[in-house]
């Protein structure tokens, strides 16, 4: 049933929110501490459990995935109801923080790539696989 998926999602969201609030109280802040993240972990755990016990039905999946696919439209609606006029006064902060974050992250990709040594490029993998495909006996089958 579709509703079981929606209900599962709702229960995970509520539990996560509750734990986030409790964590906030425990830590002495007026905030929801990581509630959405905790709820996501519940949902991942629930999915694992359902798959292991073979009870992940199509309807249940539909119920959760519909809301998952609805996330970009909801984010658009969220953007459309912000106080952008007030934010526009802080204009350059957007450009500097956004561009700065990208520049630093590009540099980190290059750095991690250099530090961890050379690996096969996509072209090399494809040409190797093309050769292997011609020798079916030695084709590297994926285990597990």
């Amino acid at each position: 049933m579709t509703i079981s998926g929606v209900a599962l999602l709702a229960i995970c969201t509520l539990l996560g929110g509750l734990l986030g609030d409790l964590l906030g109280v425990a830590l002495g802040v007026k905030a929801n501490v990581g509630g959405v993240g905790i709820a996501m972990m519940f949902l991942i755990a629930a999915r694992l459990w359902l798959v292991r016990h073979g009870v992940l039905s199509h309807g249940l999946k539909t119920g959760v995935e519909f809301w998952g696919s609805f996330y970009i439209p909801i984010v658009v609606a969220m953007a459309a109801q912000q106080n952008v006029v007030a934010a526009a006064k802080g204009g350059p902060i957007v450009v500097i923080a956004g561009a700065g974050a990208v520049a630093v992250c590009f540099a980190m990709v290059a750095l991690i790539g250099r530090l961890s040594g050379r690996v096969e490029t996509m072209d090399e993998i494809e040409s190797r696989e093309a050769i292997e495909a011609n020798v079916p006996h030695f084709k590297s089958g994926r285990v597990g």
Partner: protein
Amino acid sequence: MTMISHILAANALITAFAAVGILMWISGAISKYLTFGRIHGSAIAIMLGLLLAFFGGITTGGEKGVADWPALTGIALMGGAMLRDFAIVATAFEVDVVHARKAGLIGAVALGLGTVVPFILGVLVAAAFGYTDAESLTTIGAGAVTYIVGPVTGAAIGASSPVIALSIATGVFKAVIVMIGTPFVANMIGLNNPRSAMVFGGLMGTVSGVSGGLAATDRRLVPYGALTATFHTGLGCLVAPSILYFTVRAIIGS
């Protein structure tokens, strides 16, 4: 005319679905015909949403963007914290733990750095612009992680709407630069193999930015980048309103 506005206002949430849907069609068309697929339709839609919120604010003098127009009050419900958190949690359903193992240690390192490094940068920029409270600093820092982590964090720790709008705009701007810039720097940063694509996905985060940027670089790399990028938002939503927020609070001493 009054009949139309009556039916729109009486079905506020349904009107919001229709309005956002139309906005997304327009954005899809702009993405396809004006940017030739370079910039993802979803990023254009979010930018148009922010732009409309700006006009909404100017014409009504209110604080809730387009939701201050009587016919579009449903946008406030659709984009409010309740449905937003619900939809974001739902995206975790597509996370496959088996796939996560494939990314391995290097993916995890990239994810950690991809959350903390942009956050620190965002906080520093916000501080340079005169923000001094932990809530605003954390929210803008979280916006530099992704445009989802920003508002989720802001709502959780109680930041103001202008600051949340700034964090969304920062995240969207980041996603757009990733989409446009990636093909130009791909060679320089060694983006030609699955492993560096996974590192790239973990560091950059935004799934739309990563998949758009990698698609323009080398279509075969997209699944590897998306693999790590999907964990980025979840991790950000977990650590930004908790560990990172407390760290900021401890440092500025409020």
